[in-house]
Structure formats: structure tokens, C-alpha cells
């Protein structure tokens, strides 16, 4: 027998190679058959010889056999048309042999379970704390641990049966391998039978039926008796493997067993039929169902599924997201490694899918919703490890992450809303603390964090006004929102692979909760205003301004004192206030990003413009901040960033405001250094009326009476300006600018920085001779023509306010009446040379006056608190009015914008269906605001009415543009 037959003991696939080498090696020995000599008797002898040889081969006694002889015998039988007989004889003999094998096996062994799987019972030990249970849980990963785990919910492993089963499994595998080996030899001997008879009759080769017979008469014989035992043993072993209780060689054994299952083909007759029907006519096509697919795999999947179910249920009982995801992650990881090692390729994806489905998909929703240690907690605490795990798990079940994104959205939406509540509580807290601090020297603030305390101490020397509260709210709220966003962005980057879907989810959720509060636009504007103001506020230089209409403004300076000296002042300081460092840049960029989430961007623009206007006109640094180079200038940098976020049309007015201020500065320099060169310096801000929110009534302005020297100065400026720009009209607005006036008092000279109205009042006493004159309020009103409200306010500032009592008032009360007498206070004193007169706000002025007049009849000064309330009410009322006005303006602007957009679209499209028009419009306008369908319809109706559009006669949903 040729040595080469030992090659590739069990691998059927290599049969062909083996045959080749046999043929090759033996070619010389094979003599051409002698056709003549064989007769009937020889034939049955031949079979006897072959039959004996087969038995010898099966008994591993092949070494005595002569391959050549046997081959020749088989060859002759086939040649003499006895192929069929030979084929059937061989088959019968092998079948009988295998039946005996079966009997032997069954006699010697009976399956004993090694793992007893209990029915799962929920058995959370409610007493145990998490750490213990977790540790307990990890036990199974430690192979040194007890083999037999008798906790109620763990299957019981019967160690004593393991070896027995293993030995049995080994035995079957060995029998199988031996059988394969003999079949190979037999089929080599009967090669001619295969090649001629089997092929011609489309029958399975000898080797193939050898395998089928093993399947039919050993493994699956008698209702799959042995097969079931094998299945059970392999599954048990696999369970032990899962528990890390097996050795490598045992694992290899399982693997071999599975290989065997795979090799075991179905009953050859079934296959035969298939072949005959020519469905799978190709030689060697092995797609027929094998034992593995038919019996083992379903069982295996079922058992695995049970295993995962129990695993998941047990984990769920902890009600702890961390435990769950960490445990299943490591399980999945281990399982996948196991699968790679042991499980056939085709089962791998099935198991993975099964696992993902049971462990992740079925429970994910529940897990992520756990209170306490779960998604929300991880997001809140930036638990990157858990978030990453969650993401990875989610990815396994859905590449679009629908569930996880939904959860994320909910988290952001809910917690985003909470931020507002938090800020309100925080503010309330400060107020309470403040009261406490007032009551008990050092109220115990144990519950409040130091942040609170610092804040409260700093902010709460006095009760805040509404505006301050509002600013505080805006600052804190916006800060929290930005912080919240920052956190989520970090999570996105670190844990969610910057996935685009997630990033969109986050942004949408932000937009959702932010816009719940209609004040968000205003808050952002306040927030930015506050910050920019603080950054700019560092120096004291003096400037002033006035404005209106196509422009204009006077301002500044002048007057008088002791000896009619008119001196002046004022020059803008040179310090680089507008310059920025990177912090500021980052800050601005960070804030402007919020704009992206705001629906009512136009409302933001409105507020921002208001604040910007105030900043530009009142900040002494405005010139610097505008003149500085672009990169280095806070205001323009902010505008650039806003532009990037919203587009050009949005910021054109804001930019126009800058240009105005810049141009004004140039004009002032020119004017003051040439024409207006005298001791009185005039600085004018020329404001294009359409850009600026600040407006004034031209009627009032034209009535205001200026002293001669100021008037002539104004006219000089007018002349100067009209020469440069004919066709424009200047209107001096008197209620915005300031004057710097030097006055000699009894003790000292002071420079008084005062709003124009106040200055005009003071200038009534500019003549030294008239210093001791007294005027009634009514007289002052007539002499200056300042509107009554403003007059009262400014009189209060300079006669009632304790630090700036430049005028004496009779009687000395807080309220101002028509008949009150005012005179110059020569004995005015102040600690500094420069004295700034702060104008009492319109609100508190009105309140004080109202209260004072009210109280005048009764007792003076009853309780400051009450006064405060009146003031507060007035302030709130005032704020409400202002907001309503802004809202009205915005709504009006929107009307125009919608109209313009409709006309633009319809002009381009001529005819458009209602719905299309709606969506086009929303697309076009979303950068500014989100128009409601009602408002759009209203505009459409109005355009229909004005005959810009008409409806189609037939289709009422179709609009047509009317040129």
C-alpha cells in the first residue's frame, strides 16, 4: 500500500489530490487489464476479496493489502458491467458495519447532563449594595473560582459528569475520523467504480455515501439518538467555555465536533434525487443540508438565545445602566472571540445578530431610561467611558442610532429647560441670602455653594433693579446654556465619533428648548452687551454726542465758571481700549454660536442694535472701539461673527452704525482743528437715521433753547457740514449728548460732566452776575424748552441726588413741583476734580415724583421699601411697554420681509402652489425668523388684495404673479 495514503487523514476535500498522487506513484505498477480471462467465478471471488479488504481497512489492518490487486479487481468488475452489484455490495457492507458501530456506542454510553439549567427567577438581593453584586457578578470571569456555582440563578455544573462526556465526545470524533480515513482508502481502491459507474449513473461517490451512511446509521440513527447526546454535550461544553471552565484541548474538541457535524451530509438518496432533478447537477456541489445546519445549529442558537436571555434578565434586575452595558459589552467581546475560535463561519453572523438583538436591542430602551446610573447620568457627569460603550453598543443595532439620538434629544430638551429654572432659583437664592445676611449678621449659608455667596455679596449691597436682575438672569442663563452645549460637544467628540446625525440631533434639541423662552433673543443681546461693556470699560475719557435724522449732533463742552471762562476739554483718550485678547475673541465666537439656535434672529438684531447704539453713543471709548483696526476691535469683531452666522443683510445696519461713528470722528477732527478752533470743542456724531434705533422728536429738538455761544457753534458746524454734503439735513438731538463744564465754586473748581439737558439748565447761571438768581421750575421750563419729563428728571439729578447737588432747591423735598425754586449752589463740594452727573432714570424719576407728591400730603418718608415698590412697578410697566414696542416693530418688519420674500419668489416662479410657496418662504426667511403659516397667509391675502397676486380661476391653491 502506498505511503502517500496517509496524507491528510480526515480531510475529504483533499481526496482528489491524494488520488492523483496515488495514480502518479503507481503508474508503473498498474498493468493493463487482461480483458479475456475473468469469468463468473472470478467475479464473486473478486468481491469476496474486496469485502475482506474493506473490513481489514476498517479494522486498521490495511498494511497487508495490495492496492494494485484490489484496484484491478474492482476495475475488472466494473469493466464487466458489474458496477452496480459492486456499488451496492460496498454500500451494504459499510452500512452494516456502521450499524454495529452504532450499537457499540449506544451500549457503552448514556448521556448524563453536566449543566443543569434552572428556570430563571428574579433574585435580586435587595440588601446587597452595588459593589458587592458587581463583584459577585464578575466571579464567573475568574477561572480559579469554584467550579460549581450554586447560586439560585446560576446553572448547576455537575463536575463528575464532565470527564465522562468529554471522553465520549472524543470517542465519537475518533470513530468519525477513523471512518473518514477508511473511506478514503476504500474509495481509492474503488476509484474506477466512482469514475465510471457512479458518474455514469449520477450516484454519489463511494466516499460520499460513506459519509452519508455515517450520518444516517450512526449519528442520526434511531431518532438522532447519538446526535442528541452529542448536541447536548457540545452545548454543555460550550456553556462551560462561556464560563471559562474549559481547557484549550477541550475547546478544540468542540470545534472538531462541529466540523464533523458540518461534514455529515444528508441521506445520499435525498441528494441523489436532487441530482437527478438536475437542480444541483454539478459535481462536488456541497450545498446540500448537512447535519450541522439541520440539527445542531438551531439547537445551538436556541440555547445561546436562552443563555443571553437569562444573562440580560439578571442584569436588568440590578436596574443599573452601568452594570448592564459594561457586562454585556464584555460578554459580547468574549463571545465574539469565542465564536472566532470555535464556531463555523456561517454561524458567526447569526450568533452576533442574536446576541445584539437579545442583549442590546430588546432592552436598550429600558436600560437607557433607568433612573440613576444610566444615560442621563453619564451625560451629566461626562462619563466618557460609559458613553463610548453606549455608542458602540448602539452602533451594533442601528447605524442611524435612532433610539440613542431620541434619548439624547430628550435629555437635552428636558435639561435645557431646567437651566432656566436653575437660574431663577439661583437669583431667588441670592435675594434670600441677602435678606438673611441683613437679618443675621452672617446667615448660615451652608446649603449654598461659595459661588452663590460670592455673587450675593458682590451683587447685593442693595436690592437690584429690574434691569440688573434681568442682566443677571441673562448672563447666568446664557452662560449655563453655553456650558451645557460645550459639555455636549465634548461628548460628541470624545464618545460619538463626531457623528453627523448626533451633531444634528444636539443642535435641533438646543434650538427646541432655547426657543421655548421668547426672551432668548433679548437675553443673548443683554449678555453680549454686558460683556462688551465690561471689556470696554476701563478708562475715563470724555466725549459726548447727540444725534438724529440724517444726522447730527452737537455736543460737548463748554462753559463757565467764575469768570465767564469758557474752557474745554475733552479729547478722546489714546489708550487702546478697543483692542482684544484671545479670550475675548473666543468668548465672542462662543456666544454668537447661540444665534444659530435662535428662531427669532430678527428680534435679536433689534435688541443688539439698541444696545450697540447705546454703547456707541455713551461709551467714551466708542471712538476707539470703532477706529481701531478690525481684528483688534471688539465691536467689529462681534459684528463679523454675527455676520458669519446670519448673513450680510442682517448686519448691514449695524455696520452702517459703525461707519457713522467713524466718519463723525474724522469730521470732528477736521472741524475742531480748522473752523471751530476756539476754546469750545465740539464733537458731533452724525447718525444716519435709518440705521439707528435711537430717535428723537425733531419737533422737540427744534424748540430747545441753547445759549448764544452754543447756538453759534451749532451753526458753524452746520455750515461746515452742508458745505461737504449738500442735500443732507442735520438735526441736532439734544437729549443724547453730554457737556463738560468747568465751574468755580466757593471752595474749588470742578469739571462737571453732565448731559446736555442738565448742562442747559446749569448754563442759566453761567453769568456771574446772575449767580444768585432763583428760578421756578416753570421758569426754567420756559427758558430752556426742555420737555417736562426730562426737565424734572434732570432737575432731580442736580438738586436732589446727594452727590451732585449743584442747585439748591426750595422746598427741600424729593418731588419737583412747578413752583419749586432753584438757585445755584456755590458751596458745592466734591472729592474729585471731575464730577459726573448721573441722570436719574426716567422711571425712578417718575416714581419718586409720584411718590413724593403722594406722600407730601401725608407724612414724609414713610418707608423706603414702599417707595421701592412703586419704583419697581413703574420700571416693570416701562419695560413691558418697551418690549411691546420692540415686538410691534419686529412684527411690522416681518410683514415687510414676508411681503418682499413672496414677491421675490413669485416674480421668479410666476405660478406657484400654496404649499410650495409656503416652504420656499420658510426656507428664505429662516435665517431671520420662523414665520408662522398664519402670518404668511395674512401676507398672501394682503398681496391678493393689492393685486400683486391672484388666484388661479380653477385651482384655488395656485397663485399667479401679477406683473
Amino acid at each position, binding site marked *: 500500500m502506498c505511503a502517500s495514503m496517509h496524507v491528510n487523514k480526515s480531510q475529504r476535500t483533499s481526496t482528489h489530490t491524494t488520488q492523483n498522487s496515488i495514480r502518479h506513484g503507481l503508474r508503473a505498477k498498474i498493468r493493463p487489464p487482461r480483458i479475456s480471462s475473468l469469468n463468473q467465478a472470478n467475479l464473486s471471488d473478486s468481491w469476496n476479496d474486496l469485502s475482506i479488504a474493506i473490513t481489514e481497512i476498517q479494522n486498521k489492518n490495511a498494511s497487508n493489502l495490495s492496492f494494485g490487486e484490489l484496484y484491478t479487481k474492482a476495475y475488472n468488475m466494473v469493466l464487466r458491467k458489474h458496477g452496480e452489484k459492486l456499488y451496492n455490495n460496498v454500500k451494504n457492507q459499510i452500512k452494516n458495519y456502521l450499524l454495529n458501530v452504532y450499537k457499540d456506542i449506544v451500549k457503552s454510553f448514556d448521556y448524563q447532563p453536566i449543566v443543569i439549567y434552572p428556570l430563571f427567577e428574579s433574585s435580586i438581593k435587595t440588601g446587597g449594595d452595588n459593589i458587592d453584586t458587581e463583584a459577585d457578578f464578575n466571579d464567573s470571569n475568574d477561572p480559579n473560582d469554584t467550579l460549581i456555582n450554586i447560586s439560585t440563578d446560576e446553572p448547576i455544573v455537575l463536575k463528575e459528569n464532565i470527564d465522562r462526556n468529554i471522553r465520549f465526545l472524543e470517542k465519537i470524533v475518533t470513530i468519525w475520523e477513523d471512518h473518514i480515513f477508511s473511506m478514503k482508502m476504500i474509495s481509492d481502491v474503488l476509484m474506477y467504480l466512482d469514475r465510471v459507474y457512479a458518474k455514469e449513473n449520477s450516484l454519489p461517490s463511494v466516499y460520499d455515501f460513506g459519509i452519508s451512511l455515517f450520518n444516517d446509521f450512526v449519528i442520526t440513527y434511531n431518532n438522532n439518538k447519538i446526535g442528541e447526546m452529542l448536541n447536548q454535550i457540545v452545548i454543555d461544553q460550550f456553556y462551560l467555555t462561556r464560563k471559562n471552565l474549559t481547557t484549550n484541548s477541550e475547546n478544540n474538541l468542540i470545534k472538531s465536533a462541529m466540523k464533523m457535524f458540518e461534514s455529515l451530509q444528508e441521506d445520499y438518496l435525498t441528494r441523489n434525487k436532487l441530482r437527478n432533478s438536475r437542480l444541483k447537477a454539478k459535481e462536488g456541489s456541497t450545498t446540500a443540508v448537512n447535519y450541522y445546519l439541520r440539527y445542531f445549529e438551531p439547537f445551538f442558537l436556541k440555547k445561546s438565545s436562552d443563555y443571553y436571555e437569562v444573562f440580560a434578565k439578571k442584569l436588568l434586575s440590578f436596574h443599573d445602566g452601568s452594570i448592564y452595558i459594561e457586562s454585556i459589552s464584555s460578554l459580547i467581546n468574549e463571545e465574539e472571540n469565542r465564536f472566532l475560535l470555535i464556531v463555523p463561519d456561517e454561524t458567526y453572523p447569526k450568533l452576533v445578530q442574536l446576541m445584539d438583538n437579545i442583549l442590546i436591542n430588546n432592552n436598550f430602551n429600558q436600560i437607557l431610561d433607568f433612573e440613576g446610573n444610566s444615560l442621563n447620568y453619564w451625560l451629566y457627569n461626562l462619563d466618557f467611558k460609559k458613553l463610548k460603550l453606549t455608542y458602540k453598543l448602539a452602533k451594533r443595532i442601528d447605524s442611524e442610532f435612532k433610539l440613542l439620538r431620541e434619548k439624547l434629544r430628550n435629555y437635552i430638551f428636558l435639561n435645557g429647560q431646567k437651566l432656566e429654572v436653575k437660574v431663577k432659583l439661583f437669583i431667588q437664592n441670592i435675594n434670600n441670602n441677602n435678606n438673611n445676611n441683613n437679618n443675621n449678621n452672617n446667615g448660615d449659608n451652608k446649603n449654598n455653594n461659595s459661588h452663590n455667596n460670592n455673587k450675593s455679596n458682590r451683587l447685593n449691597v442693595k436690592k437690584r433693579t429690574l434691569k440688573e436682575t434681568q442682566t443677571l438672569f441673562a448672563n447666568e442663563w446664557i452662560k449655563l446654556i453655553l456650558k451645557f452645549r460645550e459639555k455636549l460637544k465634548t461628548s460628541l467628540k470624545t464618545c460619538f465619533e463626531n457623528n453627523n446625525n448626533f451633531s444634528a440631533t444636539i443642535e435641533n434639541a438646543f434650538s427646541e428648548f432655547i426657543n421655548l423662552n421668547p426672551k432668548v433673543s433679548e437675553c443673548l443681546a443683554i449678555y453680549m452687551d454686558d460683556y462688551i461693556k465690561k471689556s470696554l470699560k476701563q478708562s475715563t475719557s470724555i466725549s459726548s454726542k447727540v444725534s438724529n435724522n440724517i444726522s447730527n449732533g452737537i455736543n460737548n463742552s463748554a462753559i463757565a465758571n467764575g469768570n465767564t471762562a469758557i474752557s474745554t476739554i475733552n479729547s478722546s483718550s489714546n489708550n487702546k481700549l478697543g483692542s482684544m485678547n484671545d479670550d475675548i475673541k473666543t468668548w465672542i465666537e462662543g456666544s454668537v454660536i447661540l444665534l444659530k439656535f435662535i428662531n427669532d434672529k430678527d428680534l435679536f438684531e433689534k435688541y443688539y442694535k439698541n444696545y450697540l447704539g447705546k454703547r456707541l453713543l455713551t461709551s467714551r471709548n466708542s471712538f476707539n472701539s470703532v477706529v481701531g483696526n478690525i481684528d483688534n476691535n471688539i465691536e467689529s469683531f462681534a459684528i463679523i461673527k454675527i455676520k458669519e452666522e446670519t448673513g450680510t443683510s442682517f448686519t448691514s445696519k449695524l455696520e452702517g452704525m459703525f461707519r457713522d461713528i467713524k466718519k463723525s470722528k474724522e469730521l470732528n477732527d477736521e472741524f475742531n482743528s480748522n473752523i471751530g478752533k476756539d476754546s469750545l470743542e465740539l464733537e458731533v456724531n452724525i447718525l444716519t437715521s435709518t440705521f439707528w434705533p435711537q430717535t428723537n422728536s425733531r419737533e422737540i429738538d427744534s424748540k430747545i433753547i441753547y445759549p448764544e455761544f452754543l447756538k453759534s457753534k451749532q451753526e458753524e458746524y452746520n455750515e461746515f457740514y452742508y458745505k461737504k454734503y449738500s442735500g443732507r439735513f442735520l438735526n441736532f438731538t439734544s437729549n443724547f449728548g453730554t457737556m463738560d463744564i468747568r465751574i468755580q465754586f466757593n471752595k474749588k473748581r470742578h469739571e462737571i460732566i453732565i448731559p446736555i439737558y442738565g448742562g442747559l439748565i446749569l448754563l442759566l447761571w453761567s453769568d456771574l452776575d446772575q449767580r444768585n438768581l432763583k428760578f421756578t421750575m416753570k421758569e426754567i421750563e420756559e427758558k430752556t424748552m426742555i420737555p417736562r419729563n426730562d426737565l424734572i428728571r434732570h432737575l432731580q439729578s442736580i438738586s436732589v441726588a446727594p452727590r451732585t447737588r449743584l442747585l439748591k432747591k426750595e422746598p427741600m423735598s424729593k418731588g419737583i413741583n412747578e413752583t419749586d425754586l432753584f438757585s445755584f449752589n456755590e458751596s458745592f463740594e466734591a472729592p474729585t476734580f471731575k464730577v459726573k452727573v448721573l441722570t436719574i432714570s426716567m422711571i425712578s424719576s417718575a416714581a419718586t415724583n409720584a411718590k413724593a407728591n403722594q406722600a407730601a400730603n401725608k407724612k414724609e418718608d414713610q418707608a423706603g421699601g414702599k417707595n421701592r415698590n412703586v419704583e419697581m412697578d413703574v420700571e416693570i410697566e416701562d419695560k413691558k411697554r418697551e418690549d411691546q414696542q420692540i415686538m410691534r416693530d419686529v412684527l411690522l418688519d416681518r410683514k415687510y420681509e414676508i411681503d418682499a420674500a413672496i414677491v421675490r419668489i413669485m416674480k421668479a416662479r410666476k405660478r406657484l402652489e400654496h404649499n410650495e410657496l409656503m416652504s420656499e418662504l420658510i426656507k428664505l426667511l429662516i435665517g431671520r425668523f420662523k414665520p408662522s403659516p398664519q402670518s404668511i397667509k395674512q401676507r398672501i*391675502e394682503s398681496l391678493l*388684495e*393689492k393685486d400683486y397676486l391672484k*388666484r388661479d380661476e380653477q385651482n384655488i391653491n395656485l397663485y399667479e404673479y401679477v406683473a
Partner: protein
Amino acid sequence: DPDNREQIGLDGTINYIQGLGLEPEDRRALILAFILDSPSMGIFRHESFVSYWTSQNAYTLPDMRGLLDRFEDELKSETGYIKLKQLYRYSFGFIIEKNQTTIDSDIAIDYWELLLEDRFPEKIPIWCEFVKLAKKGGISKDVWNMFLDFLIQYKDDNTYDNWDPMAAWPNIIDEFVSYCRKDTI
């Protein structure tokens, strides 16, 4: 008309209508205005007056009255939406005062009752009540026109279950629908 020979003035119109045996408040008076293409209330142009009646071979008052009655009957018939629509749409221009774009809602209500109530006996009273309550100043041409389309389309539907506020109906009709829905609940 003594001032203008091309047209019949207000007094003449009233006389004429009475001659036909009708009150000025009768719908047939409006039909008359429609078929004779009267440019505004109380005025008939000579030319269209003559040409129309000539084309209809109607030279006597009874002839004319007969035509009006037939038109009136057509409006009442189940299929007469086309005529109704023509008359209805014409009415807006007829009612509206010079240099206005809308008609006063009180006047509009009178005409809705006159023109439509017999065909839409359920909806018109509710609608008129709604318009009064809502205090909408004027009724624009679009609202006027769309309203009849709405009535026809939702003739038998008083619950408006499938109402789509995003559709092209004017706002006032949206509001009317939500008013009705609240009412029905």
C-alpha cells in the same frame, strides 16, 4: 338719468324695479344688476340695458320679469352652482364702494344672507354670527370669493375633521373652522 343720458340713475332704477313688481331688497334685483352688468348700485348703463334685453327678445316688463324668475329658479336648483358663482363673484364688485378694497362686514353679511342662505341654510347663519363676533373690519375680494368655494367644497361637512390649516384658505376661514369645531364639541 337727467344728468347722464347714457345711464339710468338711482330714481329710475327704483322705478324700474318696482315696475317689474320687485322690491329693491329682492335677490332678483341683484340678478337684474348682474345680467345687465350694472357697474354699481342703482345704476344701469343704457347700452348694456338695451343690448341684453334685445338679445333675449324681451321687450316688456313681464318678459323681463319672466327671465329674472327663471334665473332665480336656476339658482335654487341643485346644479346651479355655476350661475350662483357668477352672480356671487359679480356681487363683490357691485357692492364695493369706490376706492375701497374691502366691503364692510355688516353689508357683506346682508348679502351673504340674501345670496346664499337658501342654498347653505346651515352654514350661513353660523358664518354671519362668527363674522359679527370676530369683528373683522372689511371683507376682501379674495375672502369673498373663497368663501363660496369653501361652502361648495364643504357643503355636507359640518365637522371639518380633515381640515388642513396649512391649505390655501384665507385665515378667516381657518378661524371659522376652528370656531365651528369648538362649537360642535
